[in-house]
């Protein structure tokens, strides 16, 4: 069976004064129908660049220099613009961290939803409005009719994110990419939005790529988890397995570095010393080595991904060879 989305060796670079810097380095993964895949990592690790590359939204200065992205068997990076435009926003859509900058401030909410419906479906104005009303109540807007007339700035952050989700869902997408959709929101609102995404996924059998740095959200949402560090995927595993048996020293540290309300024994938090290296594409060996407590001489050699059992891969020779 082929995958809904299959990314192979995706490599993206940005032009800089000192030459191109590779911010996403040979990233490969897949997403199946109805699956939620979480992309986890700290800021600057390349997770957003990965998702923007998939959508062809890298913008000025950035370019995909290698790899392919197969969506339903067709390569998004090598298809005519017209075909890409048909798929993007239709079957493949995205929501962003900051809903205020993603909405146009001078048009009403209703205007923006119906516009995107009409652009993709060719429905009449009236039919598009009907569908917009339906979508708004699906995403839990209390008074859909009133909301249609409002401008984005009059809505709260949680409401704006619901509008973004309504727009993203307007054409029944098969895959939704959610890039830190709740980072800007309060925790009770975050819970509402996540519950909504879960429900929509169930009702529509929709696939999702959720990009986040919140380990709690990952545990709550993911079927599979990809951990990124310095532009590379360093671990890839089913969620249950990743939390039960994290292999890469960075993943282990990441899981231990988050204080939770259940940690009532007041153990000392395990901190990861140092910071994410700049210009990590210049590092030939393991990119985590200078922060890794288990570093050995072997770590200065380039690390490849090792396949373990049960769909678990890890980019660390020592972790792959250790018994437990």
């Amino acid at each position, binding site marked *: 069976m082929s995958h809904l989305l299959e990314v192979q060796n995706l490599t993206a670079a940005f032009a800089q004064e000192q030459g191109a810097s590779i911010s996403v380095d040979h990233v490969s993964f897949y997403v199946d129908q109805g699956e939620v895949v979480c992309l986890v990592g700290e800021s600057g690790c390349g997770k957003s660049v990965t998702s923007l590359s998939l959508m062809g939204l890298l913008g000025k200065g950035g370019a995909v220099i290698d790899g392919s992205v197969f969506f339903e068997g067709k390569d998004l990076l090598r298809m005519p613009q017209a075909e890409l435009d048909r798929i993007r926003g239709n079957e493949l859509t995205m929501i962003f961290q900051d809903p205020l900058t993603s909405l146009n401030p001078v048009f009403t909410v209703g205007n923006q939803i119906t516009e995107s419906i009409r652009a993709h479906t060719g429905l009449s104005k009236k039919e598009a409005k009907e569908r917009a009303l339906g979508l708004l109540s699906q995403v839990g807007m209390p008074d859909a009719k009133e909301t249609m007339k409002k401008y984005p700035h009059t809505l709260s952050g949680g409401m704006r994110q619901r509008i973004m989700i309504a727009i993203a869902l307007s054409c029944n997408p098969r895959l939704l990419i959610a890039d830190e959709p709740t980072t800007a929101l309060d*925790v009770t609102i975050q819970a509402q939005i996540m519950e909504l995404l879960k429900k929509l996924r169930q009702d529509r059998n929709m696939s999702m790529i959720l990009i986040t740095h919140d380990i709690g959200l990952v*545990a*709550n949402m993911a079927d599979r988890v990809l951990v990124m560090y310095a532009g590379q995927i360093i671990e890839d595993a089913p*969620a*249950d397995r990743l939390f039960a048996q994290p292999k890469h020293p960075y993943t282990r540290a990441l899981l231990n*570095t*988050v204080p*939770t309300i259940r940690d009532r024994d007041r153990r000392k938090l395990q901190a990861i010393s140092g910071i994410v290296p700049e210009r990590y594409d210049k590092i030939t060996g393991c990119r985590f080595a200078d922060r890794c407590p288990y570093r050995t001489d072997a770590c200065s050699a380039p690390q490849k991904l090792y396949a373990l059992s049960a769909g678990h891969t890890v980019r660390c020779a020592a972790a792959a060879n250790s018994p437990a």
Partner: protein
Amino acid sequence: MQDTQNIPLIEIRNLKKYYPVKGGILPHTVGWVRAVDDVSFSMMRGETLGLVGESGCGKSTIGRLLVGLEEPTEGRIFYQGRDLSTLRKNPKEMRRIRTRLQMIFQDPYSSLNPRKQIYEILAQPMLYHEISRRDTIHRDLRRLLDMVGLPETVLGKYPHEFSGGQRQRIGIARALSLHPEFIVCDEPVSALDVSIQAQILNLLKELQAELKLTLLFIGHGLGAVSYVSQRIAVMYLGGIVEYGDAQELFAHPAHPYTKALLDAVPIPDPAEKNRPRQLLQGEIGSSAAPPDGCRFHPRCPWARPQCKNTRPPLQKVCSDPAKQSAFSHDTACPYGQEGSLSEWENIS
């Protein structure tokens, strides 16, 4: 000399801070935003109090009031039993007291002057307040940087040359430079990456123990707050709705809002994926027009008709006086006492 052992280091009584809302063609005050509305609590020396709540609940305003960045509309703040509002009339004494009350800000990017070298940022206040002298400043700065884990070479650099975590260390060094007793930490790790957050939280905890500091730790990340705090105060729309020992409060929340807040936090364990949770409907109201009665009642899954009438005060959760002394735990929900929450669960 007063006995400083038994009086609280910081005490606030019925503190209020209202901001005017301007409107009309000729701008005039058309209403008030009640950012902080009748809040009282006290902190003993060496204690860390965590103040949690969602954005707009007034937690940062309390922090700013405590260090004197804002003046209260009503109510009093006592520092070692002395009223700050009367001390304000004595500028010299006030100047001395301000050095004892310091603040660490959320955003380490905007809270450091970009035009000044770190040397100036740290040394100027120490020299001005005569904490150090020209001939000892270098030794004192070295000691200060050592405490926050930075090398001496940072002194000649400018803020933009540092990462977020390092800048927050500089912010902490600046707060410590005047030998304060009390520090307000206003979301000090919210702007930092997860791997850096733990470094800063551990540093704050170590410094607190080493220097016997009293901390007010403001945050919306319940995990981070509970990690550093002995006591927790939960705020909703300008008022404290629950207050108590951290362990007790998280284990047995006695206010529906606290319970919902705990339920909303995702637990980093896939086994908890489908735990039963009470999710809140609607959004936090506006402090400009807070609801009558209990301010949480429009969102409360267990609200009863009488909740709309009067604003409930904080009361002891445990009605048995013998047990009360063992731990402190107050709730502003009259139905939150002694196991009523399990009763609620049966209703819902």
